[in-house]
């Protein structure tokens, strides 16, 4: 998939799946750093332009498939139900 210039993407981690392999921080150091146990901390959840390729590579190489990439929708906000 080619990165379109007018699209923005957001990265996030599925912490239930994550086992701290650190692929995300290796490929996207501007978005992630690791805590003292090797689990990612999201520094910035928005991908800089031109970084989608590396993000996709990191997502593919994450052994737990815990790195999520999401296209930012133009219309923000959806209903969230609590408990």
């Amino acid at each position, binding site marked *: 998939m080619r990165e379109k210039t007018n699209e923005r993407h957001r990265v996030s981690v599925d*912490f*239930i799946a*994550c*086992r701290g392999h650190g692929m995300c921080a290796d490929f996207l150091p501007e978005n992630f750093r690791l805590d003292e146990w090797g689990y990612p901390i999201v520094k910035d959840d928005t991908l800089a332009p031109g970084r989608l390729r590396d993000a996709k590579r990191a997502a593919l190489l994450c052994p737990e498939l815990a790195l999520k990439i999401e296209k930012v929708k133009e219309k923000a906000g959806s209903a969230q139900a609590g*408990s």
Partner: protein
Amino acid sequence: METHPESRVDPRDWAVSVAPGLTPRLLADLPGAGGSRTLAEHRTLYPEPPRVRKDGDPRLIEEVERAGVTGRGGANFPAYLKWKVVASGRRRPMVVVNGSEGEPASGKDALLMSRVPHLIIDGAIFAAAAIGAERIFICVGGHSASAVAGIERALAERRASEDPGIPIEVRIVPDRYVAGEERSLVHMINGGPAIPTSMPPRPFERGVKRRPTLIHNAETLAHVTTIMANGTDWYRSTGTPAEPGTRLVSLSGALPRPVICEVGAGASLREVFEANGGDHSLVSGVLIGGNFGTWLSPQDAFDAQLSVASLKPTGASPGCGVLFFLPSDVCGVAAVAEIASWYSRESAGQCGPCVFGVEAIATAMHAVDSTSGADRMLTRLDRLTSEIRGRGGCKFPDGAAQMVRSGLAVFADEVRLHRAGHCTTRQMSEVAV
């Protein structure tokens, strides 16, 4: 320890009371300990819900919208919004009653399930009738034998005399805090362990058997039953316009005995505390919302009302209605550390930041003293509690951070004593000797 929120109060040991000037609703004519209102008695007060049909009944949703019922499990979310979104799904929805009550210092849901179970069951049937649900699952916290017995006895009574037009099943929830999380309940009903699953999907989109699933706290559904019997104007005649009706609060700590009190939303916290025999000069901090809540200084707490709006500037929320009053002769730092240890034990063990981070927070919290280097521990706690936020599959680690951060702020004087090598309790024992 009697004063600590970590230990559960036996359901029979909760006293029951009503806020001054309030006509009780959920607790009106409540059967005494060991008793339970029968279906026949219940029907003299509340009408039989309509039979559940698959098309649902939007008028019931409108009724709940006009009443303005909000969730009593902790999030205070408007009930009708959940009903609407679940009813609008393509597939036939499910209803789940959350009576897990994982907060150790909460007793209200077990009280209702054991003594007035039909209030909850009727509420679940009204909700099912509104949204056209296929099945109801009542999830009861396994820690309360009387709640389990109350619900099972009530369902047996119904099978003999009423047909709600919908199957109702009971599920026992393991005694672990995160087991009561919405996705944990869905996971458990679907045959898995009672631990949270990854999002999306959220249960209201796809939950039990992949159907849109309406999940409500047990008390919330009991309010629905009273509204269907008495109308929305009656419901709104107490509380505040934004938060109408009553709520049940569980008070413990610096009180003659733990008590479950029905109050109007917006009642003065000081009045509720004093009416139940509390002396505000003997309290050094108030934990609002339970272990998953926020510590407030006595001044902030006693000036506040029990509403979302009034508590918002303090950073707290009524949550599930737990109010724990720390007696001033008990060390606040030790109390925060013990609840941090509770968090460490209760983690589902799924997410790295929670498994390691919460344990590290508890360890550091126990080491806030002069021998371990209090300043180093406080710096570490500041970092750990800010780093952990938003880094779990559920909000559990965020709760640990909020409880510890608010506790360190409220017990700042006690923290200063610890840095100098002292402690309130130690000083007390020295005085006693």
